[in-house]
């Protein structure tokens, strides 16, 4: 008989009642509401064979496993967020038992309540900005498959001309990168004007995103529902003003990017008195 642990998806301050019945989470476990130090945690049971510390260390390195688990985790948070205010937890929070989870959460109750107050009735929107590929890197649609570099060692004059051409291309690219960086900063602050909070994520790896164009901004914005229309209008306007940039918007997301920050920032907020 394998040991079971308690996987935590998120925390809420409401009683979900029957709202989440039938919802299944990571590894198909049935999601339930568990008392968690005065709040309610959304949890399901997991096998420690797969989700114990050693197994996690191994499994987190497997992108397919990670994808399955990340999607299941998100599915639960996303579904619950439609009916409850949910403070999402990151991957991977596993407890040996419900009581140990409850005890740990009791210690953080104040933080959780403050964080819930920040994200309540708000959603996260993501904006990614790319340089348009034709601007950034003219020609060469298949960067992997360039001409053979060796075996054709002829014509140093042609080589020199190539180097010159290449250098001027690089200079132009550098300049347009500088312009783009300024435009992106301006766009970000314009969009931030619609948001309660913002967070900049590092640019995504092209090998994961599949995008060939350089990513210039990967940002998240926490929006009041009332501000979403204005935010979208600002994105459209920005994209009209900057044809050299490609903007991609995703959302609404559960407030992942702001849940941790809200908890960590809670101490300072208290100092300023509530």
């Amino acid at each position, binding site marked *: 008989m394998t040991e079971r642990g308690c996987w935590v998806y998120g925390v809420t301050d409401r009683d979900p009642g029957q709202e989440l019945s039938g919802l299944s989470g990571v590894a198909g476990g049935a999601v339930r509401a568990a008392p968690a130090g005065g709040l309610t945690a959304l949890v399901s049971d997991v096998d420690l064979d797969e989700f114990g510390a050693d197994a996690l*260390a191994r499994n987190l390195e497997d992108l397919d496993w990670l994808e399955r688990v990340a999607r299941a985790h*998100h599915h639960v948070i996303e579904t619950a967020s439609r009916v409850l205010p949910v403070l999402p937890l990151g991957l991977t929070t596993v407890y040996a038992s419900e009581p*140990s989870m409850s005890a740990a959460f009791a210690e953080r109750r104040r933080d959780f309540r403050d964080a819930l107050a920040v994200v309540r009735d708000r959603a*996260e929107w993501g904006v990614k900005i790319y340089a348009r590929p034709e601007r950034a890197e003219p020609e060469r649609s298949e960067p992997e498959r360039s001409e053979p570099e060796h075996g054709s060692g002829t014509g140093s004059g042609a080589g020199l001309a190539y180097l010159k051409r290449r250098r001027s291309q690089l200079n132009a690219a550098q300049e347009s990168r500088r312009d783009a960086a300024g435009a992106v900063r301006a766009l970000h602050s314009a969009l931030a004007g619609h948001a309660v909070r913002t967070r900049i994520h590092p640019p995504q790896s092209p090998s994961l995103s599949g995008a060939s164009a350089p990513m210039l901004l990967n940002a998240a914005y926490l929006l009041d529902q009332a501000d979403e229309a204005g935010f979208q209008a600002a994105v459209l306007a920005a994209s009209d003003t900057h044809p050299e940039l490609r903007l991609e918007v*995703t959302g609404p997301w559960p407030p992942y990017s*702001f*849940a941790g920050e809200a*908890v960590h920032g809670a101490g300072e907020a208290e100092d300023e008195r509530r």
Partner: protein
Amino acid sequence: MTAHENLPAVRPRENAPVVSRLPEDFPAERIALVDLLDRVLAGGVVVTGDITLSIADVDLVKVSLRALLASVSALSAAESGSDP
């Protein structure tokens, strides 16, 4: 969290941004993995539990995942005290 129905769904024109709203029945599989990992790995509340293992704790020396995931690299940078 459900009052998004009134917003216009914006379809991309040639030069327009891609504004994708996630409708309520949007299949989870369609969400880009990389966007999701940005959030569930680098976001969310971090609570220390008895088995809690954040990906930043994982020794990924022999693995390509760390190089693959910007959020993981950023996490490690943040852990070691430098600004992301």
